[in-house]
């Protein structure tokens, strides 16, 4: 049995912030990214991750993937307003689809000092099946992909090795519904 808090906590005081990944298909033209970003910044919402790339050269289409934290109601309103933007073809919250797949790619550069560290790094890299991009005497570069959560875990594990220097870049999640 859990004990009762000495301070009563009103449930409504915590607005439910949820992670959402939005996928938006747009005409690839100047200003479109600013239009989209404005819908978030105007509400004081932060974009946690963002990915923009042309996906159809002939039709001049880009797909924009946005990871954000926010109240579900606000996210639905943002999606409705995204769909009103002139260059937007469609906007989808991947969380609302019955089936969708998500991936992220991360490049990690690790500088280490000794054999023991090297072994530990190698061990984690093996567990997470990351690909070696480059290995020099004291430096190794891995490529790891998968869900953001998987990459987070890999980085957390690396963090347990003391005395190494890590530099990294992440693409942010990308996703596709089926």
């Amino acid at each position, binding site marked *: 049995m859990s004990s009762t808090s000495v301070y009563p906590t009103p449930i409504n005081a915590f607005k439910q912030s949820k992670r959402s990944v939005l996928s938006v298909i747009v*005409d690839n033209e*100047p*200003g479109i990214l*600013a*239009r989209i970003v*404005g819908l978030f910044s*105007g509400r004081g919402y932060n974009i946690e991750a963002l990915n923009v790339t042309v996906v159809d050269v002939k039709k001049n289409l880009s797909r924009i993937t946005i990871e954000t934290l926010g109240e579900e109601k606000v996210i*639905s*309103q943002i999606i*409705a*307003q995204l*769909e*009103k*933007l*002139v*260059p*937007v*073809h469609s906007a989808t919250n991947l969380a609302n689809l019955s089936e969708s797949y998500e991936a992220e790619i991360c490049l990690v550069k690790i500088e280490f000092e000794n054999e023991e560290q090297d072994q530990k790094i190698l061990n984690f890299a093996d567990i997470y099946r990351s690909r070696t991009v480059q290995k020099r005497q004291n430096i190794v570069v891995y490529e790891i992909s998968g869900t953001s959560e998987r990459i987070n875990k890999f980085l957390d594990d690396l963090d347990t090795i003391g005395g190494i220097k890590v530099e990294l870049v992440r693409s942010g999640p990308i996703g596709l519904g089926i």
Partner: protein
Amino acid sequence: MNNENEFTGADILLKALKDQEVDTIFGYPGGAVLPIYDAIFGQNFLKHVLVRQEAGAVHAAEGYARSSGKVGVLLVTSGPGVTNVVTGLTDALMDSIPIVCISGQVPSHLIGTDAFQECDTTGITRPCTKHNYLVKDVNKLSETIHEAFKIASSGRPGPVLIDIPKDVQFAKSKYISKKDISFREHRIKAGSKNVDNNFVKELVNHIKKSERPIFYVGGGCLNSGHQASQELIKLVNKTNIPITTTLHGLGCFPGEDKSSLGMLGMHGNYEANLAMNKCDLMINVGARFDDRVTGRLDAFSPDSIKFHIDIDQSSINKNVKVNFHTNTDITLTLKEINSFIDSNNIDFGDNDYNNWWGQINEWRKKECLHYEQGDEVIKPQHAISRLYELTKQKDTFVTTEVGQHQMWAAQYYKFSKPNRWITSGGLGTMGFGMPAAVGAQMANPDSLVIDIAGEASFLMNIQEIATAVQYKLPIKIFILNNEYMGMVRQWQELLHGSRYSESYVDALPDFKKLAESFNAVGVRAKNISELDDTINEMISIDRPVIADIWVDKKENCFPMIPSGAAHHEMLLSKYDKENPENQEKGKVLV
């Protein structure tokens, strides 16, 4: 190369405007639009109205658009020219008014160099337009202009801006006419053309079953065109359902009709707000559940099934969750509802909602718009009532500024046709009314156009009197002069212990002399005995007139649902006191 099929960017713009059947443009010249002004000089299809400040141009374009149903067009220069129209663009976006703003920009090669009168026009206006363009290639100019007009007037209308660098105005290309352009559907977002038959069937079934139905009609009905209004009148007459309208819905249904409960919302009628609170079926026709209308959301119409017709998908379930909705155009949907009722011989004869009307008539007995007019000082409500009585025989267009006078105008002036009432609702822009009257008079040269104003708002765009005088526009500015920012003073009285911080308008000009100095006419009524004569004199003069009506300085606007309160917690007079708990919550709201 000198090809006779090629035209300069400036000429292409003019050709496109002609193609779009634009006959009037409001503007102010400057360095970055000189080539366009040169093109205007050499033509005669387009009447250019020179305003005195760009804010005047954008509100005039709004007034023109609202009163004519056409797209309003304005032309401004780069830098300060365009920053001056930001308020008006936002106003048009909030109130769904179709306007196209053409702005000049510094030459392409100087963009981004902090050139003279340069600003990031598309950046600044992005959140306050429906869409905007920076045209860097003259070959794309024709298409861009035609798409801009299409976007401004399609779906939920709004402002569109086209920024044209000066070198593009000089560069040459072929002109592509409107008929030769095929629009890409996903960009126009015109809304569905197919009526949702299921929605129609459900609605008619619910009308039959309901005991306390109400129509709640907003500006969307106006934007759908005059036919929407006709279909609405038919439907109300057929069903005998009471109807209330928002500030922008006024005129979509005749205000003096027995089925009309008048305006609802913060300063709406007692019977309208109570009927919204107690109804069991709400039929929302092109309204957006604005906070001025709903009051406290958790107490908004708690027992009703809600139907919502709105072309704008993002207005559905935004503030209030509805049971049924459709994104199809209002005219098409109402037409289908009427023909469904007719073709299925559905008779509402047995269901006249007698109990419901009985209840509503009880509420009406409160006479929420009652006021006491004494024998000396003019009550502002009385000034509007008399203005209505003395002008109702004419096809009158009324614009307003923002504040108490605006609410009194909405309450006491009755509109029988759409597009006769032009006011700044969503943004609440003081200084809107007079330039809007200029625009309305340009679109309706033979009609009576009155700006119902407060002295504080009027001072915000006073320079446009000169525009009215120059173009011989006989607009009437009817000032309810109480020497206060009345609505600010009212809120300070209700919420801030009558500490009238900075709401007294000191050092006012003599409006009569001011009119004369502009070569307009000034008239004045200081007390009740002068009121009717002053109004009649104002109407009879075929020139711009400023009527300075001295009204009770301390009068407040009632009924009022204070911020944070619910529909049934309305204050009907200064003797009603607000629930102190609501007052504290309401203080932080707007």
